[in-house]
């Protein structure tokens, strides 16, 4: 048997109150695309940080081509041929591509030489990129190329990619995969972190699955079904949300000709948005992050006011009504950002239940608060949505992300809305909780609520929505029935490859 490129032996890392990695061992072979699979909080990031020298393991060893490997800092890891593309880019918008790459280098060559090397590498690997373009003008896919080229210039033996496709359209994902395949054929190993099973099945040679910090199994993805991998990841049988066949009622929410200037310097303006949602219908809105999702939610919640007629609820113009008035009518929303937007971090769950529940649950009497009723309401949400917390008096920030998300969604669902708008309802939530949230949304729709679900998780949208539209630079595509939509069509609705040149490998 040949020596693996990188071998991990019993890596353990504990943080106060949680063991992030517990005796993790696996090998990455030469020229292998190795998937690291696991839910949020399974310990993938910590493991990768140990390999990249950002975190020091409590115990365990690593060997690189048979030699002991214990990088004290990322610089040491890079010197040994480890490169990493982070999920969040660290690029300066105001500088051009070559300048950004030079900033990350130990001894940057003269700008002219660097630019020609960038051209050379980008052409070899089918990642066309002009070194003199300003990064601020690049799309997410192109920014990722900058990060990848930055890594490739080091001629790495192992390339670590952390959730690389979460910001890409399906077309951009295909371009990326071609590049990765080319790298593999040249003998570069890739450690590919993801929780998207279909991608891993297409791309990876081998997969290691982490659950609660432990290595719970390895498999060859192309020979394992996505369902089996998911069950290894979650550790239990997955329940697929059920949807009853149903008839749609009249139009409940009617948005027409909605244009709103960007509310902040870094926001997105909404341009001439049209959509209608019928009673009992789930409209899924996809799109890459930062294309107007937050603004659309703000406009529907009443945080951003528009002309009265741009938004109609059961025929009544509500564009000029604030959040409280809309809640009174039955239009409820759940924003993406849990801490600080949907919930106040330092306030108790009882107080957070009051935050949106005061009107519909009549938790106030001439302005005076009914704390006992509010506590009951909070307890009802906790019980119905299986929120894991000692009690409603605990602060919102003491809950894990998934539990708080269940609380935030549950708070709106329990109020029996006529229209419910949710943004990223299962973001950062474990699979079991995500399934419960999706089921709750579907149950609500079955009772006749018109639901708008904004999400970047296409699988989720395909699973729960009846019709699908995509946001692209503040414009909403015309909604289409979900059944029969192909991935290619969805990708085109999301803006295709955002004008990115296709790789020529």
């Amino acid at each position, binding site marked *: 048997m040949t020596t693996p490129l990188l071998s991990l032996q019993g890596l353990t890392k504990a943080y106060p109150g949680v063991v992030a990695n517990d005796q993790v061992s696996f090998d990455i072979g030469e020229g292998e695309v190795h998937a690291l699979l696991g839910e949020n909080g399974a310990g993938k990031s910590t493991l990768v940080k140990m390999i990249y020298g950002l975190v020091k393991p409590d115990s365990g060893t690593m060997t690189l081509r048979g030699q002991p490997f214990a990088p004290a800092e990322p610089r040491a890891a890079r010197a040994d041929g480890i490169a990493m593309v982070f999920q969040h880019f660290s690029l300066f918008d105001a500088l051009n591509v070559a300048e950004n790459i030079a900033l990350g280098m130990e001894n940057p060559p003269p700008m002219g030489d660097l630019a020609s090397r960038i051209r050379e590498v980008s052409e070899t690997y089918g990642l066309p990129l002009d070194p003199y373009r300003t990064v601020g003008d690049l799309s997410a896919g192109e920014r990722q190329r900058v990060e990848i080229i930055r890594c490739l210039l080091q001629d790495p033996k192992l390339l670590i990619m952390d959730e690389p496709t979460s910001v890409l359209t399906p077309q951009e994902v295909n371009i990326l995969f071609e590049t990765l395949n080319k790298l593999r054929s040249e003998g570069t190993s890739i450690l590919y972190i993801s929780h998207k099973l279909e991608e891993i099945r297409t791309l990876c040679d081998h997969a290691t699955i982490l659950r609660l910090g432990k290595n719970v199994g390895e498999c060859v993805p192309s020979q394992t079904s996505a369902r089996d991998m998911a069950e290894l990841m979650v550790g239990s049988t997955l329940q697929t949300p059920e949807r009853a066949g149903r008839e749609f009622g009249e139009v409940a929410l009617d948005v027409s000709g909605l244009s709103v200037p960007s509310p902040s310097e870094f926001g997105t303006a909404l341009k001439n948005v049209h959509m209608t949602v019928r009673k009992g219908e789930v409209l899924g809105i996809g799109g890459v992050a930062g294309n107007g999702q937050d603004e659309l939610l703000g406009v529907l919640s009443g945080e951003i006011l528009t002309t009265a007629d741009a938004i109609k609820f059961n025929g009544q113009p509500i564009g000029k009504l604030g959040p*409280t008035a809309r809640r009174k009518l039955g239009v409820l929303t759940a924003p993406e950002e849990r801490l600080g*937007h949907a919930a*106040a971090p330092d*306030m108790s769950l009882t107080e957070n239940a009051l935050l*949106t529940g005061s009107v519909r649950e009549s938790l106030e009497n001439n302005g005076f*608060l009914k704390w006992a009723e509010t506590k009951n309401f909070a307890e009802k949400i906790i019980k119905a949505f299986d929120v894991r917390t000692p009690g409603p008096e605990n602060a919102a920030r003491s809950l894990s992300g998934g539990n708080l998300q269940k609380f935030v969604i549950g708070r709106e669902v329990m109020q029996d809305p006529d229209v419910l708008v949710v943004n990223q309802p299962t973001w950062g939530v474990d699979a079991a909780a995500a399934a419960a949230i999706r089921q709750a949304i579907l149950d609500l729709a079955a009772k006749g609520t018109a639901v708008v679900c904004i999400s970047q998780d296409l699988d989720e949208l395909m699973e729960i929505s009846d019709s699908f539209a995509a946001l692209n630079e503040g414009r909403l595509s015309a909604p289409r029935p979900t059944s029969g939509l192909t991935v290619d069509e969805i990708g085109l609705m999301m803006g295709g490859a955002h004008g990115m040149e296709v790789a020529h490998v």
Partner: protein
Amino acid sequence: MIVLEKRPQPSKAWSYATPLVAVVATMIFGGVLFAILGKNPIEAIGTIFWEPLFGEFAFYYRPQLLVKGAPLVLIAIGLSLGFRAGIWNIGAEGQYIMGAIFGAGAGLAFYPLEAWYIFPIMVIAGAFGGWLWAMIPAFLKVRFGTNEILVSLMLVYVAEQMLASVSLGLLKNPEGFGFPGSRNLQSYDSAHNAELIAGSGMHWGVVTALIAVIFAYILLNRHMLGFHIRLTGEAPRAAKFAGVNPARLILFCLGLSGALAGLAGMFEVSGPSGVVSIDFNVGYGFTAIIVAFLGRLHPVGILLAGGLMALTYIGGEIAQSQLGLPAAAIQVFQGMLLFFLLAFDLLTNYRIRAARSEVA
């Protein structure tokens, strides 16, 4: 190495314990300071904290505690509501002055008429004066997005000029032999904010301060408006999502704190001070900021903190006259109190942990 670790949720025990720990730490380090100055630290601390309450002349000092404490509490209650919502009124001193000018002016306009309605009119005028002065930063913030900290603070100096102007002109006592300052309201019965029980120090300002404490407690804990104030301070985006109108909240918080500061000024000028004069204001408006934070922006805490602050004022004066401590040392002592309070406050949200050094 010592690291701070964020608690999953704020510690209840520490949030109550910090003020006490801060007072103890102030006593210890204040004692060291006094010892360096060559005074007996135990005697000095004892003089400041014991003498006003239980000393030989306590019968004289105890009413003074109410007289000094009431304006501090009244102003601090108003400020705390704004501070809770992240609205920083630093100009209570100016609103206090304007309340005194409006209140005294309304009273003196009736001079020498004696009638029951004069004092209530003065109360309303005082509150109106403070409200009006606070509405300037409020309006500018809502309309043009100016910084209320700067505007309210600068208006303090404008108010001081107004005070000098009316002391020398509009409100000057015509029978005052040319000296600056108004008629003494203490000798004008209908306008006099007299002690309700002679010798107790209890005047209408003290009563109003107590009512304000109860009012603020109910507002913050039992009313939607108070909930919105707290929500805005903790998570402005969540407040907007909950349907809070930020502009209305700014107008309410600044207006109310201005009105309460104005009331404090009016009660002071018609009672303990009696006269509108150039040096009428003694910094209650600024000290009240310390009181508000010392009381953890909680109404009952502010009541206690106002008492404590008044105690260090009076005790400090006694220590100055009896032990010859410099006035600056007393101010350092008061500053220490706020410093330690804010420092120990960290423990409410963080715990201290010894940590091995780690390559980060």
